[in-house]
C-alpha cells in the first residue's frame, strides 16, 4: 500500500449547513507513482471537492469526512499544523483555475516562488531565487530573469498560469493537483499549457490529478480517466478504454455531448434533465433518472462495481454488455 502514490478508500464527504450536501459518496481511488489521472465530471460532481480534501482545505467545522486518504503513505486526514503545512506545497501542490486570484498581487512572481522554496527547503534567499529563475525557464517563460521581478498583473493570462505551475512545482511535489487550470484560457493558449504540463510531468516524474469537464482536455493530458457523477466515480480506466469503449451510459452521454464528430444539424442525443441535488445519500444509481437504458434494478439499489479488466471499473448493472453504438 505504501508504494502507491495515492490511495483513497471509501471517502465520504458531507457538508453540514442550512442544507446538507452529500458531496462525495464512498469514493475509492488509487494511483501509481508518476501517473496522470483526469477526474472528469460536470459542475457539482465532486471533482473539486476531492482535490480540496486531498490538500486538507475543507473547512473542518462544517465538513464530515469519513474514509481514508493516503498520499505516499502519509495519512492526509491525520495531518495538522506544521505537518500539514509541510505536506501542502512540499508533497502535494495545486494549480488553480484562476491564476489571477491564486497569485498574490502585492509580491513579484520571483519573490512568491522563492518564498515557497525557502519555506519548504530551508535554503538561502539567493539560492531560492535561482531556483525560481530555473523554474520560470522550465515553464518556458521568455526572458525569465526579467520576469522574476514582474508582478502578476503585468503578465498575460497564459504567462500567469505558467507562473502558477512554476510555483506549484518549485518544491518538486510528488503529486500535482490541477483544478481546471486551462478552462479560463484561450484555445491556442490552453493547448500550450497542456503540452507544457505533459512535458513537466515526464521530466519531474510526478503524479498529476487533472480535474476537468472537457473530455478533449482529458485525452490530451492523461493516461487514465475517472468519470465522476453526483459525488461518485462511475467509471475508471485508461483514456483509451474510456474514449473507445465507455461503458457507463453517463460516460457515453458525455462523449456524445462533446460534438466532436456529430453531423451538422443532426439531432443531439442529449442526456435529459440535470444532476441530482445531493441532499440525501444516494440509495440507488444516481444517474437512473436521466439514463436512457434504465431498468428496475437501477432503482432498486446502488449499482454493482463491475471490473471488466484490471484497473478498470464501471458502476452500472449493464457494464458487462458493451453498448452498441447507436
Amino acid at each position, binding site marked *: 500500500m505504501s508504494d502507491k502514490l495515492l490511495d483513497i478508500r471509501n471517502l465520504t464527504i458531507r457538508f453540514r449547513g442550512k442544507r446538507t450536501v452529500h458531496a462525495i459518496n464512498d469514493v475509492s481511488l488509487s494511483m501509481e507513482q508518476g501517473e496522470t489521472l483526469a477526474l472528469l465530471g460536470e459542475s457539482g460532481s465532486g471533482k473539486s471537492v476531492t482535490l480540496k480534501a486531498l490538500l486538507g482545505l475543507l473547512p473542518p467545522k462544517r465538513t464530515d469526512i469519513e474514509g481514508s486518504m493516503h498520499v505516499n503513505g502519509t495519512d492526509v486526514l491525520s495531518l495538522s499544523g506544521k505537518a500539514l503545512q509541510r505536506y501542502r506545497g512540499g508533497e502535494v501542490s495545486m494549480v488553480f483555475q484562476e491564476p489571477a486570484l491564486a497569485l498574490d498581487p502585492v509580491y513579484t512572481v520571483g519573490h512568491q516562488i522563492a518564498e515557497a522554496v525557502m519555506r519548504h527547503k530551508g535554503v538561502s534567499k539567493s539560492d531560492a531565487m535561482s531556483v525560481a529563475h530555473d523554474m520560470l525557464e522550465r515553464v518556458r517563460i521568455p526572458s525569465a530573469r526579467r520576469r522574476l521581478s514582474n508582478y502578476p498583473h503585468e503578465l498575460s493570462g497564459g*504567462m500567469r498560469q505558467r507562473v502558477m505551475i512554476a510555483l506549484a512545482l518549485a518544491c518538486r511535489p510528488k503529486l500535482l493537483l490541477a483544478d481546471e487550470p486551462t478552462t479560463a484560457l484561450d484555445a*491556442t493558449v490552453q493547448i500550450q499549457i497542456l503540452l507544457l504540463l505533459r512535458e513537466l510531468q515526464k521530466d519531474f516524474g510526478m503524479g498529476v490529478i487533472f480535474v476537468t469537464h472537457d473530455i478533449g482536455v482529458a485525452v490530451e493530458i492523461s493516461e487514465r480517466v475517472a468519470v465522476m457523477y453526483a459525488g461518485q466515480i462511475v467509471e475508471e480506466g485508461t483514456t483509451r478504454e474510456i474514449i473507445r469503449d465507455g461503458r457507463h451510459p453517463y460516460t457515453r452521454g458525455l462523449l456524445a455531448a462533446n460534438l466532436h464528430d456529430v453531423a451538422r444539424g443532426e439531432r443531439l442525443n442529449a442526456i435529459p434533465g440535470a444532476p441530482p441535488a445531493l441532499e440525501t445519500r444516494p440509495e440507488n444509481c444516481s444517474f437512473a433518472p436521466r439514463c436512457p437504458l434504465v431498468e428496475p434494478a437501477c432503482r432498486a439499489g446502488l449499482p454493482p462495481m463491475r471490473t471488466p479488466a484490471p484497473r478498470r471499473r464501471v458502476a452500472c448493472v449493464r457494464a458487462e454488455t458493451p453498448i452498441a453504438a447507436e
Partner: protein
Amino acid sequence: MSATDVETYEPLPDTGGPAQPLLMVRNLRKYFPVRGGILGRTQAMVQAVDGVSFEVKKGETLGIVGESGCGKSTTAKLLIGLTPKDEGEIIFDGIDLGEGLSLKQLRKGVQMVFQDSYATLNPRMTIEASVAFGARVQGLDDPEGRARRLMERVGLDPNRFAHRYPHELSGGQRQRVNIARALAMSPRLVVLDEAVSALDKSVEAQVLNLLSDLRREFGLTYIFISHDLNVVRYISDRILVMYLGEVVEVAPVDSIWAEQAHPYTRSLFSAMPAMDPDHRTKEPPLSGDPPNPINPPSGCRFHTRCRFASEVCKTTPPRLAGLARNAQHLVACHLHDAASGHPKAGQEVAA
C-alpha cells in the same frame, strides 16, 4: 400547441425579400478609451472592433469564433445598440439603423441571449415578469400570456416556474428563461453570445436541440458566438473568424472545415484537443498569448505570431477577399492574394 405559438409570434414584416440579407454590417468600428493619470485623460485606445463587415442571410446561422479580446462580444453589443458604435453601418433587412429604423425598432427585430444566465436576470423579478418585460415595453398585447406560452415552449412548465426567482433555478433552466425572454419580443434575429458556454456539457446539448427547434419553428436567424469550435460547427451554416478586432476569414462551415485559409484559423483549429489518445497533439500551433488589443500590431495584426509572415505583412493590412477557387470563402491574408507582394503568395502552403 406550437401552432398557437406561431400565431402569437409577430415578427417585423419582411421588407427586403428573400435575397436581401437580414443583417448587413459595414465597416463597424468601436474603440474604447483607456483613461488614466490624475486628470483621467485618454491614454490609449482599445481597438475592440475595427472595420468589421459581414452579412447574415435570412434563416441562416452565422457562427463567430475567436479568442478573448478579438471583439466578438463587442460586435454583438454593437449589433443591438447596447454599445454605441463609433463608425459603420448596420442595415437590418435593407433599412439603415438611424435612418429608416430607430434603435427601439431594431431591438424588436434583434434580440440577444447572454453567457451568464444568472447575471442577465433581475434577481428581484419572477421568471414570468422577466420574460414578459420586453413584450410589455414593446406594447405587445397580453405580455403574461405570451410569457407563459414561451416558457412552456422552451421546456419550463409555467405553473411550476412562473413565480420562481432566478436563484431558485439551475443554470440550464435559467438559460431557457433567457431564450424565452428574447423570443417574447418576436425577433427575427437572435444574437447568442456564448449562450451555452457556461452550461454543463449534457445540458448544453439539450439547449442546442432547443435552439435548433426554435429556429425551424419561428423562422429565426442566429448569430452564434462561441469559443467552442465543435459547437459552432454543429449549429452554424457559415463561420466568421475574428482576431484582434478584425475579420480574418468567413466561409461556409464545410469549406472552412476542409481548408482553413488563414494561418490563424488553422492554428485555432489545430489547438482543439485531439480526442484521440493515440494521436495526441504534439506541438502547440502557436506560442505565446494573443497580443493586447490596445496597441495591435501594424499591417496584418497576426504577423507577430504567423509562421509565414514576410515584410509586406508588417506594413500592409490584408483585405478580405474571396479565394480564387471558392468565392464564398473569404480570407484576409496576403498569402492568398497573388498581387500582395508576399513571396509565397498564391502558392499552396502546407499546413
